[in-house]
């Protein structure tokens, strides 16, 4: 599965990190870092991350 975060929208709130911390994390500079290629077994948690993003910046294919 492909994960994409629209960095124009992302405000680095890190809400997504709570749902799937193996996919999303905040770096030392406070900026979001994420994996673009994610195993399909992680779909449910990644979809939860999509739900909780205040900026609705995350898309999954």
């Amino acid at each position, binding site marked *: 599965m492909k994960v994409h975060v629209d960095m124009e929208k992302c*405000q*680095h*709130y*890190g*809400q997504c*990190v*709570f749902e799937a911390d193996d996919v999303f994390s*905040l*770096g*030392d500079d*406070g900026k979001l870092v994420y994996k673009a290629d994610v195993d399909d077994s992680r779909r449910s948690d990644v*979809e939860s991350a*999509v*739900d*909780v993003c*205040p900026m*609705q910046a995350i*898309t999954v294919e």
Partner: protein
Amino acid sequence: MKVLIVGAGLAGLRSAESLRGVGFAGEITIVGEEPHFPYNRPPLSKDALANGLTIADLEFKRRESIADVTWIFNDSAISTDYQKQNVLLDSGRLESFDVLVAATGIRPRRLKVPGAEKSKFSLRNFMEAQELRASMLGARKMVIVGAGFIGCEIAATARKLGIDVAVVAADPEPMFRPLGAEFGRAMRRRHEAHDVSFHMDAKIAGYLGGDSATGVSLESGEEILGDLVVEAIGSLPNTEWLAGGELDLQDGVLVDSSMRATAPSDLSVYAVGDVARYAFDLFDSTPRRIEHWNLPTETGRRAGKSIAHFLTTGEVLAEPVNFVPSFWSDQYDDNLQSFGILGIADSIKVVEGDLMGDCVVEYLRGDNVVGVVGVNTSAKLAPYRKRFQEIN
């Protein structure tokens, strides 16, 4: 088996998705007063107000799993017949239910003072945001009544658009109730640095102007002038349509940890999102109605799960509420973010930075940290949320 969800906002959407997610295969109908699919409200005081986003930009993605949901727009619930298990809509249509989910959110409280009827605004939905924006684009100066988060965000957006802003409020400091006096004062200074003027501890006596508001008069006799006035003085839960039964409707719908209305026990009525009042078990046992964006998702998920559990086992799901309230707010270039329940704290402690700059502030009840607020320090707040879920 039919679940009727009233209110087509975030909480209604998440309830439907959750029901399908846990395998509920029955009928789902969602009734919404607005002409839109569920959309994201926070930008209405920020981006959409500054830059004029379209409804398509704001709409939530809807999962494939809810493609078969029946949506009724432009219609609102007027009353509920608990015996016959149906809801009367404004159009005259009767919608039956086996399970009813209240997801009707809140509406802005309005000032009850005499005077002008036009050029005064409130902000909860897309239509109001469009009207407010149109009026702001032609304004040189505006008055904002109320200094809560929404009032302060509108102030920051207005300054971005080059509009002079006067904020008038009954509290001693902006965002006083959630943040407290000290942090509120620091936030006022941030706004003052952007030339917002504040009239605090003020009571509005009336509107100035004839047909159109040209400002407000205060009980002190002072007059605050502006080309338009926005009221941002809090909210009222939309529960009138649920009256006449046995539900506890004092300040929203009282529900248990499964989001099920506590009475009458033989009825399946649930409430989610801003309209629901319940105990946050990680903090204490007092039911609270908290209007933070993450809670419609948490409560919607919980309701879907509880409903499915009840329908399959005949028993109420007994899982404590493990949601940590969380909000954020953008004002100028500052991002505020919070976890926990700030309102129950009795003192604050600045643990990093200072209140005028980037900072992390703990909110304490006795020796316990019950909340945290950060300005431009998101990454440092995550451990707090984990802690709340572990120890409180």
